[in-house]
């Protein structure tokens, strides 16, 4: 019996790697620490009532943000481990298998469990407030989305200590990921973790599209919509149409692995290239899903910190929409070397270059917005300014990669690695950080320290160029992606060493952000006005942090940049409060169901990972029961009495 358990445990838990034992200890200590602190401070009920069961978009946004920052830490540590291994030739810091697991985890986490939730954090925090709405269209579904993301990410991260991490790259190409070559449960963790959080992403896409189309304040026509909201519309359209392709690809691969099907095997009529095709039908639009909202953030930031309305609002909207459609016609450029016909490659090459045009329009519009503006170099603006040259370079190398014949030279080399890090860090991560700094006072009621933020900014930016510029050269010198070591004869040592230094500088930059947050919690400047940046859109018209119901009176919108227009007319929501009587406010009730349902999804996913079908079935049964309970729930709304609204507004000094 004991032998039996021991042999089970030695397969179940990841063993034999000192770094993982150290992490095991750290994880256990961290969990014990959290449990102890919550019990000691008697905060369990608070955690359940205020956070886990919440359907408030602002709190869900904060939970997304915390998760995203934690995931950024994990993905960043993975990056540093890889750069440490590659700093010098013939190192044995990581073996091949371990290196494979780390680059797989790094890629998957950074795009799916860092960039996506970070965006959803900003969607949640800013969109309803910019629209003058009291919540999203489907608050319950919003909570479901978050918890599905959370448990999907948890399942994926669990592979680190239980069962073993996936090791076939974030793209997970078959036939390598088929059972014949990849027995372990690692790949299953990848498939199920992404699948579960993908359901949440899909729901978020629908939720925010409906919110923006249906929940705008009176007078806010589509052409008066803040550009961030427009970018969310574009992003949500892509989510809705692109995610099903990923769902299908992952589901078919899972059926191959758990039910011995042959969709993507080499034999029995399977075709592995079909997975690659389906993966990129999602995969390329995915990069626009993450970068378009970043464009929206830059538009808000540029306009606010230049003190001017955005230049070329209409062309901004049109180019967002063009990108959201054309982004479906470019996916094959990820596998030009597959051997498709010249016609296919030419079509997708031209489409890939075309998409640079609307992007260029946007860059010029940002520059013209700054032209003759009174620019304030606050943190969000700094990151925006850093984005423009960085993204321009990433775009130029993207055009180089889009030239199909030339791509045969660069394909899967470090040139590609440098290119997509430049667009995804320079485009997306900079935008996310700009958005975080911009909306932080609205989320928490205090600003982040500028001085520490500048240190973070410079370390991160200089580190970025030191890290990735050498990689373009390494690509030209023949270094391919995913190699875990190289010999000194290749002549790659010096560039690799420089690149690793850059990675560490970026790591220091991240630490400065952590210090900045911790320092500002205690000493950060409190935002008492609700409008610390002299903003232009409606979220700055209310108190920071926003009260539970957001707007005591729903504002009337008469112009684009609604809050700026109100200020120009000497109007404010405080005056509206004084003029008009308070009314009861209709709000959704908190619910524990989304959390419980996501736990069942997690149980089911865990069962599928280890082929324990009784557990998988049990989990799915639980999910079904949760849905039935929800369908029969007629008591999901309540009214905040007018007196309570008045009291809250009075306490905020807004009557």
């Amino acid at each position: 019996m004991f032998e039996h358990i021991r042999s089970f445990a030695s397969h179940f838990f990841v063993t034999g790697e000192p770094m993982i034992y150290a992490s095991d200890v750290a994880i256990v200590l961290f969990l014990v620490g959290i449990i102890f602190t919550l019990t000691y401070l008697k905060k369990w009920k608070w955690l359940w009532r205020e956070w886990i069961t919440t359907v408030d978009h602002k709190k869900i946004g904060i939970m997304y943000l915390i998760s995203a920052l934690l995931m950024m830490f994990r993905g960043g540590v993975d990056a540093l481990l890889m750069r440490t291994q590659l700093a010098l030739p013939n190192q044995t810091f990581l073996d091949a298998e371990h290196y494979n697991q780390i680059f797989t985890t790094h890629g998957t986490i950074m795009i799916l469990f860092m960039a996506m939730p970070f965006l959803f954090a900003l969607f949640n925090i800013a969109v309803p407030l910019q629209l003058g709405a009291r919540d999203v269209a489907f608050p319950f579904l919003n909570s479901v989305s978050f918890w599905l993301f959370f448990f999907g990410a948890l399942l994926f991260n669990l592979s680190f200590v239980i069962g073993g991490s996936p090791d076939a790259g974030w793209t997970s190409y078959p036939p390598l990921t088929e059972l014949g070559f990849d027995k372990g449960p690692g790949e299953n963790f990848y498939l199920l973790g992404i699948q579960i959080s993908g359901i949440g992403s899909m729901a978020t896409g629908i939720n925010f599209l409906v919110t923006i189309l249906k929940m705008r304040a009176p007078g806010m026509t589509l052409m008066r919509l803040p550009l961030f909201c427009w970018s969310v519309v574009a992003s949500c359209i892509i989510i809705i149409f692109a995610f099903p392709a990923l769902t299908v690809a992952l589901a078919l691969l899972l059926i191959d692995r758990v039910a011995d099907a042959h969709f993507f095997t080499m034999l029995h009529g399977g075709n592995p290239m079909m997975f690659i095709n389906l993966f990129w039908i999602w995969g390329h639009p995915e990069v626009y899903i993450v970068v378009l909202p970043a464009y929206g953030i830059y538009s808000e930031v540029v306009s606010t910190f230049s003190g001017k309305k955005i230049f070329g609002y209409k062309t901004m909207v049109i180019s967002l929409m063009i990108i959201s459609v054309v982004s479906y016609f470019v996916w094959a450029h990820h596998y030009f070397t597959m051997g498709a016909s010249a016609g296919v490659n030419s079509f997708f090459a031209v489409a890939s270059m075309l998409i640079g045009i609307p992007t260029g329009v946007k860059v010029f519009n940002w520059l013209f917005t700054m032209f003759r503006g009174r620019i304030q170099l606050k943190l969000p603006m700094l990151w925006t300014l850093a984005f423009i040259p960085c993204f321009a370079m990433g775009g130029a190398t993207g055009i180089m990669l889009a030239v199909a014949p030339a791509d045969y030279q660069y394909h899967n080399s470090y040139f590609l690695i440098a290119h997509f890090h430049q667009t995804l860090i320079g485009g997306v991560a900079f935008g996310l950080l700009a958005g975080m700094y911009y909306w932080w006072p609205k989320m928490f009621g205090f600003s982040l320290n500028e001085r520490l933020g500048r240190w973070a900014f410079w370390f991160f930016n200089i580190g970025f160029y030191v890290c990735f510029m050498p990689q373009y050269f390494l690509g030209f010198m023949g270094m391919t992606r995913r190699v875990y070591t190289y010999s000194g004869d290749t002549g790659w040592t010096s560039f690799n060493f420089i690149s690793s230094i850059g990675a560490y500088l970026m790591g220091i930059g991240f630490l400065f952000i952590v210090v900045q947050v911790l320092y500002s919690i205690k000493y950060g400047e409190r935002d008492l006005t609700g409008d610390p940046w002299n903003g232009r859109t409606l979220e700055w018209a209310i108190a920071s942090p926003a009260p539970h119901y957001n707007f005591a009176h729903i504002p009337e919108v008469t112009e684009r940049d609604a809050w700026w227009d109100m200020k120009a007319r000497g109007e404010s929501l405080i005056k509206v409060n004084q003029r008009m009587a308070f009314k009861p406010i209709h709000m959704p009730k908190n619910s524990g169901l989304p959390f419980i349902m996501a736990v069942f999804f997690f149980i089911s996913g865990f069962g599928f990972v280890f082929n324990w079908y009784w557990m998988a079935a049990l989990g799915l049964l639980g999910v079904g029961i949760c849905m039935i309970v929800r369908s029969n729930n007629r008591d999901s709304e309540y009214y905040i009495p007018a007196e309570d609204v008045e009291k809250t507004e009075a306490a905020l000094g807004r009557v």
Partner: protein
Amino acid sequence: MNGSTQKHALFPIKNVIGFGLSLLLTFVAIALGVSHALAFGPVMMIIMGLAVLQIIVQLFFFMHFTESDGPAYHIIGLAIGIINTIAIIAGTLWIMTFNSQVH
């Protein structure tokens, strides 16, 4: 939010019929694929036809295609949907013809 105020039939007969139809269409497609009763070309054409029917079933039985009480967003939505579907299906078929060239 105000689901309770809308009028609901006691039994969701429309949804059940839709669900039955979509399952039927799926199983016919699987049967055609698994049985090898027909050559590849005809199977492909029939499955594409079934897919179009499936879209129609989804639109009418589940996606409230005939209901509207405001600007007709779903015309735009449908247009984008059709563009994307054609792009994905036609693009995939075109890309995957590389097999015939390789062999």
